[in-house]
């Protein structure tokens, strides 16, 4: 790691950088015996093995389990506000043991309702679907699938988790504040977020939200630079960029998006902190609050929205792209077919990444922007349908006439494609400025993004967990419970969000705590009850997964080395790889990752590590040339 070792090649040097774990990761280490690795791991103190680990696989498990805890909290919050929306007249005194003073004379406190929605959004978008999804699988799969012993910097990787953990602690703590957690929506628009006196949640809750997010951004940057550097520098012999599995391409581009967009959120948050605590007026002007005129002059709340959505829009792709990558991998493996259009898949990922930076203002059509500007953003937004359509077409073409194995992971992958189509179609509607202005403040938008990025990213997450569980924990998850989990969730998601489109298009407004005062909305009472029942049932169905997950860690059927007959590198490691991943030399890679059911081949898959010289019968002419 030090610069006083001038003879080391960069890659070797980086492997040496795994740090505190005493495995000598030099070229010589590649020839170590397996038992020597085992031996070193028995010597480790549990604190270094399970808590302050620098092993990317342990860090991935830490991210996953923290993310699962957050998902349960986030889901609980949504059940609470669905109770309010479904039964606005009901007495909620029975929730008093849980919510304490937030239940006021049998009613949910309106300000707490806003806090619930805010925290549900923040938790799900950032803590579950960014850290829990991308953090888990980027960490777990990048070194394993590119053929590296660990991340470029194990220490920074560990810091990435612990910054996330600190950020989690701060956010969790804010849930228990006397004045409640942040309540300005997960988008924290000023002036609600900028004036501590605006509402109870704008005080300490908002401050803690900002502190937590600052820590979260640090965590994302530390993780992101590590992922990118690992993919650029630490690929094994033969693993050219055009032989990378699509998962890695997705994680790579996701990390680049994070590196470029999170600093912008940091800028916005910093200016907001100055507005809140140091008397500046970046986002405030001409405000009259509680009978008092504020001295703030010259700020613009719309400026905050620009800065926020410059992160916010890439953020939704940060959420969905890792899921897309994993779904591509799982579909190809379980259809026993090469992914259709490998290069088009990479191209569309790159296209989505580029476009994600130039469409942010489609979240702001209703801010009174210049209609010409609106039409530019509308045009760019609708172009995203092209790469998205390419991806959907390729997924369906991969399934076409495949020898499909309906494993639990495969079901979730197919479910992902279904949800992405259903949710994506309404994206085309909302991308039109004229339509969006009509629908913007209705449940139509809520239904759209919950299908296309919320639920489908969750399906990607489940698909990844079911598929890579054997490599993570050395055991299999129960398939039957997986099927039950899938069908309950799949049905649940559609039963929640399809009716929500309907109430939205009929004009039912979002963000309302109670709608019983408006006669126009009383016709939706039954529909809202239905949505609430479906949402709460779908939430409870997730405990089937939680049980399956923790039960299988300890009691699951033991996994084999390559249970899905997959071609990628992670399945060439031992069943439970130690720190360093491969006991001997890192295998070299000779072919792309999707040689499934290749004509002329005996087995229906050829791992990436098999050279063309050993597969004379199935080589294509240009592959044969490599051998000759």
């Amino acid at each position, binding site marked *: 790691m*030090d*610069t*006083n*070792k*001038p*003879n080391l*090649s*960069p*890659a*070797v*040097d*980086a492997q040496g*950088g795994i740090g505190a774990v005493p495995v000598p990761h030099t070229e010589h280490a590649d020839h170590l015996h397996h038992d020597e690795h085992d031996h070193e791991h028995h010597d480790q103190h549990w604190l270094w093995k399970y808590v302050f680990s620098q092993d990317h696989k342990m860090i991935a498990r830490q991210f996953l389990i923290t993310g699962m805890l957050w998902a349960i909290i986030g889901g609980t919050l949504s059940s609470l506000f669905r109770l309010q929306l479904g039964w606005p007249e009901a007495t909620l005194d029975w929730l008093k043991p849980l919510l304490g003073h937030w239940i006021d004379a049998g009613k949910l406190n309106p300000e707490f309702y806003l806090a619930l929605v805010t925290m549900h959004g923040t938790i799900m978008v950032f803590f579950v679907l960014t850290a829990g999804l991308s953090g888990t699988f980027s960490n777990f799969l990048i070194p394993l699938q590119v053929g590296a012993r660990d991340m*470029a*910097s194990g220490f*920074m990787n560990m810091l990435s988790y612990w910054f996330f953990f600190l950020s989690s602690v701060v956010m969790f703590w804010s849930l228990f504040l006397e004045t409640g957690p942040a309540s300005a929506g997960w988008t924290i628009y000023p002036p609600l977020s900028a004036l501590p006196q605006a509402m109870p949640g704008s005080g300490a809750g908002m401050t803690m939200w900002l502190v937590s997010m600052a820590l979260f951004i640090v965590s994302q*940057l530390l993780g992101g*630079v*590590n992922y*990118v*550097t690992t993919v650029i*520098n*630490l*690929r*094994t*012999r*033969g*693993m*050219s960029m055009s032989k990378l599995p699509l998962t890695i391409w997705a994680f790579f581009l996701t990390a680049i998006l994070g*590196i*470029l*967009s999170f*600093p*912008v959120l940091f*800028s*916005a948050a*910093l*200016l907001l902190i*100055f507005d809140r605590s*140091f*008397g*500046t*007026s*970046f986002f405030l*002007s001409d405000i009259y609050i509680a009978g008092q005129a504020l*001295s703030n*002059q*010259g*700020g*613009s709340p719309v*400026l905050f929205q*620009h*800065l926020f959505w410059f992160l916010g829009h890439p953020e939704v792709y940060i959420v969905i792209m890792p899921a897309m990558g994993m779904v591509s991998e799982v579909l190809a493996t379980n259809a026993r077919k090469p992914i259709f259009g490998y290069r088009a898949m990479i191209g569309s990922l790159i296209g989505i990444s580029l476009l994600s930076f130039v469409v942010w203002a489609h979240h702001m059509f209703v801010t009174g922007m210049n209609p010409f500007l609106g039409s530019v953003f509308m045009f760019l937004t609708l172009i995203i349908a092209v790469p998205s359509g390419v991806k959907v077409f390729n997924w369906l073409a991969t399934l076409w006439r495949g020898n499909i194995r309906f494993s639990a992971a495969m079901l979730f992958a197919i479910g992902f494609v279904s949800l992405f189509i259903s949710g994506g179609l309404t994206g085309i509607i909302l991308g039109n400025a004229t339509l969006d202005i009509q629908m913007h403040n209705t449940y139509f938008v809520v239904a759209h993004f919950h299908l296309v990025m919320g639920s489908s990213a969750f399906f990607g997450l489940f698909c990844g967990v079911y598929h890579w569980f054997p490599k993570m924990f050395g055991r299999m998850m129960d398939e039957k419970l997986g099927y039950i989990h899938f069908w309950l969730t799949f049905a649940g998601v559609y039963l929640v969000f399809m009716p929500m489109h309907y109430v939205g298009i009929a004009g039912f407004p979002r963000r309302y705590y109670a709608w019983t005062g408006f006669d126009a909305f009383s016709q939706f009472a039954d529909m809202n009850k239905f949505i609430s029942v479906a949402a709460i049932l779908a939430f409870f169905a997730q405990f089937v997964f939680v049980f399956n997950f923790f039960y299988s860690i300890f009691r699951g059927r033991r996994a084999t080395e390559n249970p899905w007959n997959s071609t990628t590198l992670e399945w060439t490691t031992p069943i439970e790889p130690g720190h360093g991943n491969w006991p001997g030399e890192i295998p070299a890679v*000779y072919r792309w990752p999707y040689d499934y059911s290749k004509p002329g081949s005996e087995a229906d898959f050829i791992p990436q590590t098999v*050279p*063309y*010289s*050993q597969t004379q019968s199935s080589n294509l002419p240009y592959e044969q040339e*490599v*051998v000759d």
Partner: protein
Amino acid sequence: MNPEILSEKEVGLGWHPKRVILILLIFSIVMMFAAFTSGYIVRRDEGNWREFDLPASLLINSIIIALSSATMQWAWFSAKKDELSRVKIGLMLTLALGLAFLAGQFISWGDLVAGRTFFGGADANPSGSFVYVLMGVHAFHLITGLVFVAVVLLRTVKYQVHSRAMLSIGNATLYWHFLGGLWLYLYLFLLLNH
């Protein structure tokens, strides 16, 4: 056994991982200042924007930081030629000039206040607040740069920096030039847009 010849390791971009990490972090800093400066322009174009005078002392600070880039580069060349005493002098000069720059920025803040351009409070306008934010966030990064240069100086004393161990001084030089370039960009930006 197999006739397919592979290179020992995929070489990536030919950069050391630490260099790649630094470059990626520089990109993230660039994005942060891109956000500030584009926010500045958007805000200004919407009106209700108070013009202010840029203190003349900023020009002196800019010259100081340009000089510090030169001394840093001199240290790097000296390391390349294994002239370690010159490396130490170069790094110490860079540190001294960096501290002088920070002191100069602080004095410029005083000039701004004297010219009734405030960061916060009833008399403040976002135009002035932005100047403090740009200078302050840049100064924060410059402090991290100073720490980096100090670490390299320490390593030079321990004979860990020489012509065959150029990584740390190379990274420090890259970062320092970036910080200098960033300030010159900010200065030009403020000159053109105040």
